[in-house]
């Protein structure tokens, strides 16, 4: 891996208005989030509904414009540059809604080729067949329509379309959460294989920690628009440091009765609050078992720490492992 990130986001914020564009109350869907992904690396962005992970994904591919902050591709601001935009492609969550039902697989997968003028005529067809083969579909499928495919096959079509533009970064927004477990594993393995073959970087947006563990090198955890913890996948998922990550980890059930039964009676209180009225101070404070007065006053900033395992960070006044302990 080279030392320079392929895609970097610095201080991204996005506000929306809830309940009307003019009189609605403004709220931060994403607030001051930074991330960097290296070539060939998978960074997972994890969190529950309303944490801003999908808005973040949409900003990274240019479907939403950030209110603050900038997105850099190999160190250069992306903005409206089409050639740079092409380098970052998206795979959507719902393979039933994200494919136009009235177009053939050929036209769906070829759309990025047409938009960016990458291939025409026989070369266009040949390229689509090559892409379909790469994602494990029969190239003969190109004349068929989306409804003729199962959920897993449709997600493969969505991945083939994203790859058509020859991107360096794939942003996948919950790409397997609508699929059955056995099919989910097929798609996860496909993404891992494609990454090995093509060297692409992946930003994997998900809520399922076990799926994230299977695919990611690094993990960033979001809560109510803020990044609360980041670091290597092992560190964040197996020995979480932010109390919210600990809560997520404790609620994730695994197919192991002895382990899953440990979760009985240990649910974290409360629900993620409405992002329109976030609590003062740390946004997790009303649900946090480690809360003190400090947490209710000022919002904790992300404190990064670098060691042999790479960079890790936590935005918490009382992380599970104290900073002193970390640097010792």
């Amino acid at each position, binding site marked *: 891996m080279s030392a320079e990130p392929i895609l970097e986001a610095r201080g991204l914020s996005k506000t929306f208005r809830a309940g009307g564009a003019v009189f609605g109350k403004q709220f931060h869907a994403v607030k001051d989030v930074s991330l960097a992904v290296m070539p060939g690396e998978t960074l997972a962005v994890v969190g529950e509904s309303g944490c801003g992970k999908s808005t973040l994904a949409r900003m990274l591919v240019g479907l939403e414009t950030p209110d603050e902050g900038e997105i850099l591709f190999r160190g250069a601001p992306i903005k409206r540059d089409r050639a740079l935009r092409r380098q970052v492609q998206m795979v959507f969550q719902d393979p039933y809604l994200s494919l136009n039902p009235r177009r053939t697989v050929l036209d769906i997968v070829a759309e990025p080729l047409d938009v960016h003028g990458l291939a025409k005529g026989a070369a266009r067809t040949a390229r689509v067949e090559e892409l379909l083969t790469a994602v494990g579909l029969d190239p003969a499928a190109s004349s068929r329509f989306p409804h003729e495919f199962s959920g897993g096959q449709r997600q493969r079509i969505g991945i083939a379309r994203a790859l058509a533009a020859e991107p360096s970064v794939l942003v996948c927004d919950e790409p397997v959460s609508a699929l059955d477990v056995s099919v989910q*594993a097929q798609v996860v393995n496909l993404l891992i294989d494609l990454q090995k073959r093509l060297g692409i970087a992946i930003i994997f947006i998900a809520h399922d920690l076990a799926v994230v563990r299977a695919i990611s090198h690094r993990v960033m955890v979001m809560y109510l628009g803020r990044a609360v913890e980041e670091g290597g996948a092992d560190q964040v998922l197996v020995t979480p440091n932010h109390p919210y990550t600990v809560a997520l980890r404790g609620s*994730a059930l695994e197919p192991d009765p002895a382990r899953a*039964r440990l979760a009985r009676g240990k649910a974290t209180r409360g629900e993620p609050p409405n992002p329109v009225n976030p609590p003062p101070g740390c946004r997790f404070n009303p649900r946090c078992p480690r809360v003190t007065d400090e947490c209710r006053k000022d919002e904790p900033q992300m404190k990064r720490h670098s060691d042999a395992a790479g960079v890790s960070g936590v935005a918490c006044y009382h992380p599970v492992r104290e900073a002193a302990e970390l640097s010792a």
Partner: protein
Amino acid sequence: MLSVSGLDVSFRTMRGDVKAVSDVSFDLKRGEVLALVGESGSGKSVSTRAVMGIVRGNATINARRMELAGHDLLTADEEQKRKLRGRVISLVFQDALSALNPVLSIGDQLGELYRTHLGVSKKEARERSIELLRSVHLASADKRIDDYPHQFSGGMRQRILIASAIALKPEVLIADEPTTALDVTVQAQILDLLDELRDELGMAILLITHDLGVVARMAERVAVMYAGRLVETGSVDDIFRAPAHPYTAALMASAPRIETVEKLEPIKGSPPNLIAPPPGCAFNPRCTHLGELCTKVRPELVGDLPGRSRACHYPLVETAHVG
């Protein structure tokens, strides 16, 4: 409590009969949690809807036996079944927003249950509803009783739906993917609530889910379905330790885990078309443990160990014993 044997459900479609459920049998004992597990289209939801008598569309339902707390559901008329629903057996759906009436306040919806089933006054129905919402730990129940479903969060709506299901203290609760639409931290709360209510009311729970983690957390016994048939049944501890049916084993191998990073083992192919299922065992085109009989003879569900049964010619557990 609930005993079903030889249940068949088929739907008539333009392209032919879809056998959604074939020869499904299970017993739910008092106070236990039995999980019915399978992927989409395996027939787990249809089976339980057939028991509740709420299958929609042009379905044909046949069974050798269907008994609920001493009542024969096969001979019961609509009026008798209506009385059993709510008082003896009740259902919690996955999607609380569409299961609740959007134009009635929570108090009106819950109160209606008490007024129609128990014939109590409007005032008493309201008081009982507030009490009920307290029992599912809905915060400030007395103030929120006049709110409408859209004013609640997903987790709170699921609590309200559970409240309406347990209002008449049923003996059997069918929970159909009760936490699938929820965030994990909220799922943990709802599962804790179900545990608590089960202890308090002594009700048996039939849990329908695709999530093996939820099964491991909640159930004592499990029945695995594939393509409309039961392929394996037994205690959760036994089956998770050593699955006998290759489908159960493959399902477990395809589920990712947090503690260990191993390459996931997906099941090749996709579930069969139920209009024309493959001959022999329906899992044979996807099975990695295929033998001579699998494409010719459909395996029956037979018990090979105490409390366990499987429908497989070459079960993995027996092989392990021989080896």
